[in-house]
């Protein structure tokens, strides 16, 4: 895509998200698609983030709750397994950490500058259920 100004844009704009014509979209994985620069897949909203989710694969039970409730298609999931987070598209809303059912949570929101390894090293312990009085 060349840098086109408003003077050169037609009254109606046609944006093709793929470089070539796309056949059988529903059976093509995102990694196999030939995205053009018009697709927002090529863009990034990483700069929006104040906090970021960090994923701990040791605790994850692959329930896919985070995948279905992510508004930004930023949870990478392959063959029914959670793979990690797409930090190019994640906006840091925190829904994934909120809906995570494990104990301790396998997704926790940290400050954007946090180093992943140090967060994983100091992951919270399993919380005991409080006995009802």
């Amino acid at each position, binding site marked *: 895509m060349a840098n086109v100004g408003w003077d050169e844009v037609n009254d109606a704009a046609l944006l093709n998200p793929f470089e070539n014509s796309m056949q059988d979209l529903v059976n093509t994985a995102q990694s196999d698609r030939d995205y053009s620069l018009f697709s927002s897949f090529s863009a990034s909203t990483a700069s929006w983030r104040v906090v970021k989710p960090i994923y701990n694969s040791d605790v994850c039970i692959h329930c896919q709750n985070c995948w279905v409730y992510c508004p930004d298609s930023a949870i990478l999931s392959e063959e029914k397994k959670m793979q990690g987070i797409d930090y190019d598209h994640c906006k840091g809303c*925190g829904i994934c950490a909120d809906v995570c059912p494990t104990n301790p949570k396998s997704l926790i*929101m940290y400050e954007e500058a946090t180093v992943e390894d140090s967060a994983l090293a100091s992951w919270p312990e399993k919380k005991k259920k409080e006995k009802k009085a």
Partner: protein
Amino acid sequence: MSKIIKNLKQFSTANERLEGAHLLCPGCAHSIIVRELVNCTDHNLVIANATGCMEVCTAVYPYTAWDTSWIHIGFENAATSAGAIAETYKVLERKGRLNKNAENTKVLAIGGDGATYDIGFQFLSGAVERGHDFTYVCLDNEVYANTGGQRSSSTPVGASTTTTPAGSQSIGNKTTKKDMIGIMAAHGAPYVAQVAPNKWKDMIMKFQKALEINGPTFVNAMSACTTEWRFPSHQTITVSDLATDSLAFPLYEIENGVYTINYRPKNIVPIKDYLAIQGRFKHLFKPGNEHIIEEWQKRVDKKWVQLQKMEEMTNS
């Protein structure tokens, strides 16, 4: 060609058709709903989008977040465009001129509550009355969120919006929410339903049903708005849970006039809890405004009784 989706793990193998990096607010329920809508089926989709948050944020030049065919014309005519597209496909098929790749196409219209309840109402009414084969999904966040939070006819009583601000002389919006589902059912639409993003299985069941059924179908999707409802962005699903459990948004469907309630909460939450989590209803908890919450609770209880009676009546 509708997919059979038994559980979430199976659903998660779907290949994404709405890309990330659209410009909706973090935690917006719109994209949760639309992602499930476009991923729940294998059909080719043609989407007509009315002006609103969803349209503005997913198609900011030079980017598009859609991997499906998608068109935006005007604020009001998403339903008309969708109807015209559906008729075009029908005519081309009859004349044998339909491209092989374009077979199995379903036509969708998506609009916000402003485009559905107010501005596009006449056009939607016309398209449903003419009986085009399309599905209309209303993303109902009860406010004109895209232009800065003005009230729409979907805004409930007591909500503070920029055109009905709460203050010492005002309780916020004075009118009750329009019953769009009832109005659409009264048009004789073959399928009308209400969904909420937290009940994903119920939601994709209804979307698939709406797409399968021949004729105009209408789905009202409750969509929590972090910016205008004023709650932290990570609480979208919590707010949706409270909305369905307090019966502020009962989940039901009307298929050819037959009512079915799809979700009966085990513990019905008082409407107070649903209101307390949102900043737009903060003033209702000040002394002197208690009567609004009480009236609201009565209205919700009455509606629930009415729904159950309708279900009983139409199923007998």
